[in-house]
Every structure is written in C-alpha cells, then in structure tokens.
C-alpha cells in the first residue's frame, strides 16, 4: 500500500482539473470548454447547471471515463490524463455512482459488492463479505444481501450502488445525478445515505438537481453552462445572492 502511495505528490488537493476541454464531432460540440477546478480532501462539491451544460462530461472526465481533448486531470497531484498512466489503479480510489445504478444483474447484492475487492484489492472472500455486510447494515439493507438487483426498488438499488463503490474504500466519490431516475418518494433515502457519507468526511463531487441537498451539505456549489464554470461559491453565495444572470435565471426556473 505504501509503495503504491509514493507515486502521489499530494499538494493539498485531491482532485484538480486544468483548463479541461472535451470536444465532440471535430470540435463542433464543446462539452467542456476550459474548466479548472480544485477540490480539497473532505470537501463536498455540488455541480449544478442546465441540461447539456457539461456536468456529466466534467464528472466523467475526472476518472477518465471521458478522455479529455485538452487539459489535465490531477488526482492527488498526479496527472492521470497523461499517456501511459495505468488509470485502473487510480480508478480504484475513485468511486462512481451513476444515474441508472448499473448494478450487475447476474450477481447478487453481496457479489456485486465483493467482486472488485476480491479481484482487485486481493481481499479474501471472508474479508470482502465482512466489509460488505458492515456497509449493508449502515444502509439498512443487510437482509437483501442474497437478493438480485432486479428484486430491489430503485432507491434500494442506488443505495447498493453507493455501498458497492464504498467497498473499494475510495478517497473520493463521484455522483452523477444519483436521484434523477428515482420516484420522488425514494429520493430521500438515497440523499440520507449521501448526507451521512458527507458527515463522515468523504470527499464528494455531486451533480444533482436536489437544491435542498446542496444547501445542506455542500461546501461549495459550481454552476456550469455551455461547458464552462459560470459561477461558484458557498451555497449561501450561490442560492441567496447569485450574481450571474444565467444563474439567477436557472435558479428561478427550478424553484
């Protein structure tokens, strides 16, 4: 573990991007057009903005699910967007939660959670299961350990997706609209899990339309439009005294 950690040059930030650009269709679509962010360990950053503004692209660039056209992504001071980086090792430390859960349908809940720790962290089955059960208890789903994803509600699936990522003991968690595919009455149970995670000090970047969540737990809110960051600040600054007219307009439209 220590050897591996040596490659990092911790500089006070866990994640940084430098002038990140992502173009599609030969540059006619600029999903990201120069985005620089820096996130400190333990920070909770919420990203908001209208649909198509590049929020998902930004989040997915952080673990290189999208390959930036230009710019850098730094994880603990190391440029992980450079050539010949073994991105798989870094991804183990960055959990990701998707809008559509993406649980593995052919595996039970417990298998979903222990697959990666066993194969990648070389944990024994017993160790991995012990950790998984602990996490399942935290999200009150220990009784569903042997169920298949198709037997769960959307809210339960997303809670499982979160703890599946946590089984890898990540240093940062990325959420891309984790509650957008849920029936309204199931949103709360997922947000509660995320709030607890934030309280425990997890570094989180979260794309969401849940402004209540942003106000309550975000240290910082980033507002994006057209592939750039238009405004950023504390929840108080963003929600009570927005400066940019586009942000004002956006906030009006969603309230």
């Amino acid at each position, binding site marked *: 573990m220590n050897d591996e950690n040596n490659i990092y040059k911790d500089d006070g930030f866990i994640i940084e991007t430098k002038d990140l650009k992502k173009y599609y269709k030969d540059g006619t679509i600029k999903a990201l057009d120069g985005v620089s962010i820096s996130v400190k360990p333990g920070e909770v950053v919420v990203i908001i903005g209208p649909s198509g503004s590049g929020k998902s692209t930004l989040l997915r660039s952080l673990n290189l*699910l999208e390959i930036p056209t230009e710019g850098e992504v730094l994880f603990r001071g190391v440029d992980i967007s450079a050539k010949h980086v073994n991105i798989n*090792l870094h991804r183990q430390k960055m959990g990701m939660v998707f809008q559509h859960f993406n649980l593995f349908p052919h595996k039970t809940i417990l298998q979903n959670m222990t697959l990666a720790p066993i194969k*990648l962290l070389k944990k024994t089955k017993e160790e991995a299961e012990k950790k998984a059960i602990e996490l399942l208890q935290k999200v009150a789903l220990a009784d569903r350990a042997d169920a298949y994803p198709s037997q769960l509600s959307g809210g339960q699936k997303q809670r499982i997706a979160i703890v599946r990522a946590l089984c890898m003991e990540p240093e940062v968690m990325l959420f891309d609209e984790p509650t957008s595919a849920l029936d309204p009455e199931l949103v709360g149970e997922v947000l509660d899990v995320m709030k607890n995670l934030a309280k425990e000090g997890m570094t989180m970047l979260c794309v969401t339309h849940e402004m209540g969540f942003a106000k309550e737990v975000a240290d910082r809110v980033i507002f994006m439009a057209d592939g750039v960051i238009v405004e950023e600040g504390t929840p108080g600054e963003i929600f009570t005294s927005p400066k940019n007219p586009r942000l004002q307009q956006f906030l009006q439209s969603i309230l």
Partner: protein
Amino acid sequence: MKEKFIELKEEFVLNFIDGGRWKWLVDGLGNTLIITLFATLIGALIGVIIATVRSTYDKNFETLQKNGGIGYYVMKVLNGICKVYLAVIRGTPVVIQLLIIYFIVFAKSNNDLFIAIFAFGVNSGAYVAEIFRGGIMSIDNGQFEAGRSLGFNYVQTMIYIVIPQTIKTVLPTLCNEFIVLLKETSVAGYVGIMDLTKAGDLIRGRTFSAFMPLIAVALIYLTIVLILTKLVSILERRLRRSER
C-alpha cells in the same frame, strides 16, 4: 397390397439388415454428432475470442489511439486479422473450406475426423463471432462503465461482467448454431468421412436402391433437429423466466 408390403420388407432387409448395414448408419450418426459437438465448441471458443477482440477495438479506439505505441498497432493488426477471417469464411462455401483444409492445410495428416472438426469449427467460429458481438454490443454501456469505474481493466470487465451476461443472451442462438452445423456437416463425405449422409449414400451405392436409405437418413436428421429445436425453446423460456 400385400405384395407391396412384402416388397417394402425385402427392401428394408436388403438395405439395413443384410451385411449389418444398419451399423453404417449408426457409425455415421456417431461421426456426425462428434463432428458437430466438437466443432460447435471450437466455434464458440473462436467466436468469443474474435468478438472480444473486435468489440475491444471498437470500444477502446479512443484510448488506444491516445496512448499510441505498440498496443494500438497490436490491436489494429488483431482486428484486421479478425476482419479478414470473417470475410473469407462468410464469403466462401463451407465445402470449399473443408476441401482446402483437408487437401492443402492438413495434406499430411491422416486424422480425418479431427480435420473435419477443425474445418467446421473454424467455419462456425465466424458465425458465432458475430452472434457474440451482437450480444456484447447489446449489453448496456452502463455495465462497462460500472466495471471500469471500479478499477477493472477492459479484459476483466469483459470476463467478470459483460461476457457472463452475454452468454445468457446468446445461449439459445448458440444452440441454434449447433442445429445448423448438424445439417452442414452432411458435406463431410466430400473428404471421405463416413458421416450420416455418407453412410446412407454408401448403402444406396451398394444396394442400388435409393428410397430407403436416403429417406431413413432424412428422417434421422429431422428427428434430431426437431428434438433439439424443442429443447432450445424450453431453454429460452427458462432463461426468460430467470430474468425477472
């Protein structure tokens, strides 16, 4: 009426009983089943590999291109080889492939049965590859992304997450491939292998009576195909039920 019956009986005795000729059909059927079974296995193996290479190339093109270097060229070459293989196998008749493999590739070998298995396996692989590729492509991209975001590399994601799901979706199609192959192996006689078809034809040549042996062979094929088709539809229903 009675005369007709006696005539048929004599025909039957002549074709199947005399000289123990029914045993030819049994042996022939044995060879047909052996060739089909092992060729299907080889075909499935080739198919999975080819489909994996092809979809790896398609899905990781961006990364490969970015990193450049040897990996990119290796994949490009592998993908090229796969494409040529698919084009050649699917663009030529199976009999020609069999003859080429028998008389040119393995000209020095005497193991006829092995050669036939190899030839039909190589042939089947091309079709299975496309079945599998369709299966892989039909798996939601979110499954790849979930695997990759946990830290699995591409191959691990394929092995642990995508292929197990693909097999479930393509299993019925794979069984149908077995049925198709069962009938296609009837050209094995071209290289002197006594499969079911050849056995019937040998009997015809010996007894100078075509009706009984050829109809018998046809009925045997038909029976097996009907049984297998029924089994596949049962399997399909089972898989669908276990889905949800």
